[in-house]
């Protein structure tokens, strides 16, 4: 019996460490200055998928991502850590997708993959922080969802038991597969790259990557077909054009402003006793404290 786990992952700009050069003079974000990384919570999701794989005989983990050609990097990265392969969904038809158009495309790609038992993804991506794509994919596929998962505790008799980490507590829930599970950042970190797997998959590439390279991979891929990272465009998935990209996105960006805080006239103090005591006296006198 095959058991298929699909991990939804996204390559994102690293918004956590936005330096001064990340903002252009006109106040817009300079995406080129930000390194592209594996969305952190998607790595937590990959780890849960790999743990599940080790518990189920014959289970396979594949990573599905939507993005530009370079997003194949995170599929390769997943393979270095234990995934069996992946699919890159790429093409200009997908440009301008909001979360709903993204989930429509991902759901169509999952249908093409075929029988999927568990879909695991990060709770949210750090470039948008919306946490919408997981539940929206689940709804498009007509599957139930378990969000904010911290740990997949058990899988038996076709039912999965999951511990959820909520804002103010913990919940343990159980439900029948197939299911979408979105994983919280508080879940276990992803295992590091495995040296042997890194060696095995270092030449894993999409068609576009092979074509862009000066190396001829024809012979290698004849003997090692598992190196191929599937690359799908809109024509490879069953879809109606109106639901993809911009036209499939009900939300529109009206305006973008860069955040500028008005500087105040600050009083500068040193830690000298006299200065701290003066400050405290002043705060007491104007009823800020006391």
């Amino acid at each position, binding site marked *: 019996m095959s058991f298929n786990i699909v991990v939804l992952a996204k390559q994102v700009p690293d918004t*956590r460490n*936005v330096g001064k050069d*990340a*903002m252009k003079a006109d106040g817009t*974000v300079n995406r080129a200055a930000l390194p592209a990384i594996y969305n952190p919570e998607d790595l937590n999701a990959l780890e849960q998928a790999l743990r599940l794989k080790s518990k189920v005989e014959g289970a396979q983990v594949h990573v599905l991502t939507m993005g530009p050609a370079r997003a194949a990097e995170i599929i390769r990265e997943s393979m270095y850590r234990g995934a069996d392969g992946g699919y890159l969904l790429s093409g200009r038809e997908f440009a301008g997708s*909001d979360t*709903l158009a993204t989930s429509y495309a991902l759901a169509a790609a999952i249908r093409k993959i075929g029988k999927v038992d568990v879909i695991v993804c990060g709770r949210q991506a*750090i*470039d*948008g*922080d*919306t946490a*919408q*794509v997981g*539940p*929206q994919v689940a*709804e498009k596929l007509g599957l*139930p*969802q378990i*969000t*904010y998962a911290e740990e997949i505790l058990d899988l038996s008799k076709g039912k999965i*038991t999951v511990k959820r980490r*909520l*804002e*103010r*507590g*913990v*919940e*343990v*829930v*159980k*439900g*029948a597969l197939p299911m979408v599970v979105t994983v919280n950042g508080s879940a276990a970190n992803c295992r590091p790259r495995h040296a042997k797997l890194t060696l095995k998959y270092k030449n894993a590439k999409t068609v576009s990557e092979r074509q862009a390279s000066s190396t001829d991979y024809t012979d290698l891929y004849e003997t090692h077909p598992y190196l191929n990272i599937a690359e799908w465009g809109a024509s490879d998935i069953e879809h109606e054009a109106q639901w993809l990209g911009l036209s499939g996105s*009900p*939300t*529109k*960006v*009206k305006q*973008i*402003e*860069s*955040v500028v*805080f008005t*500087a*105040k006239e*600050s*009083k500068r*103090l*040193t*830690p000298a006793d006299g200065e*701290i*005591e003066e*400050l*405290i*006296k002043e*705060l*007491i006198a104007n009823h*800020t*404290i*006391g």
Partner: protein
Amino acid sequence: MNNIFVYLEIEDGIVADVSLELLTKGRTLADKQQCKLEAVAAGYQLDKIGEQVFPYGVDTLYLADDKRLSPYTTLPHTSILVNLFKEEKPQIALMGATSIGRDLGPRVSSALFSGLTADCTALEIGAYEDKKAGKVYDDLLYQIRPAFGGNIVATIVNPDCRPQMATVREGVMKKEIRNAKHVGKTVKLEVSKYVSDTDFVIEVIERHIEKSKVNLKAAPIIVAGGYGMGSAENFKMLYDLAGVLGGEVGASRAAVDSGMAEHERQIGQTGTTVRPKLYIACGISGQIQHIAGMQESAMIIAINNDPDAPINAIADYVITGNVEEVVPKMIKYYKKNSK
């Protein structure tokens, strides 16, 4: 028809603060749009919900009361909203950006093909011109939210799809009673018409929800620590200072991520937004996402080793020095000079 809906989040029969905050905002928006403010609650034993929400100006309260609807699970609550919205066709639907609202909202928006904007920090009504299509839309909901790690603020609109959906974090909007004596209409929904038995596929085996111990929003004084505190051990002195001043302890994301403080103490875009009388930032460099959550504090004192820390730009007082040296002195001189 085409009214404004707020989904009420309920725990132990009590309507969550975030829902009351949304009702307050929803009331203002409904006045502007000259439509009704409606609220919907799904759960069990909801008799006491009306008295909690009517003072906020709710015109109609829809109740889906069924034992199986509590505790919250995704699909039954989704079905109630989706089917009710199909009947009532609201123009706007709001819910809390909580672990429930963020589980439910996207599901509902996907089913109705309506746009949803997560974690809005402001909601306004205004016009929108689609230059490509040559169309002008009046009275759209401006869904204003930070994006890109807080470095930009985006205004999002949903020109064509209804309802226009948004989630808002707790503490971002103000909670204000409209009329303590107001009583609106209550509509009890026949639950079996809205929910099918197959929606009950997730079983809740265990549930521990704690009442929040920390109330940052209500604290007049906040002593907040950042990564520069160095250790959980050092962080303790902030509790001492907050203790003598009668304040609460907050933290930056970096301090929470490194385990020095609990998540519920986090201030900033991904935490709580605060507006205290006094904010003392200790060892906080002032990442933009932190500043966004505390810049409206009436007075800000920044204590930092780095004379060029970004937080200094918005501080009223900048003390350049070691937190370990400054904080005990503040405690000492407060004790000496108060009373």
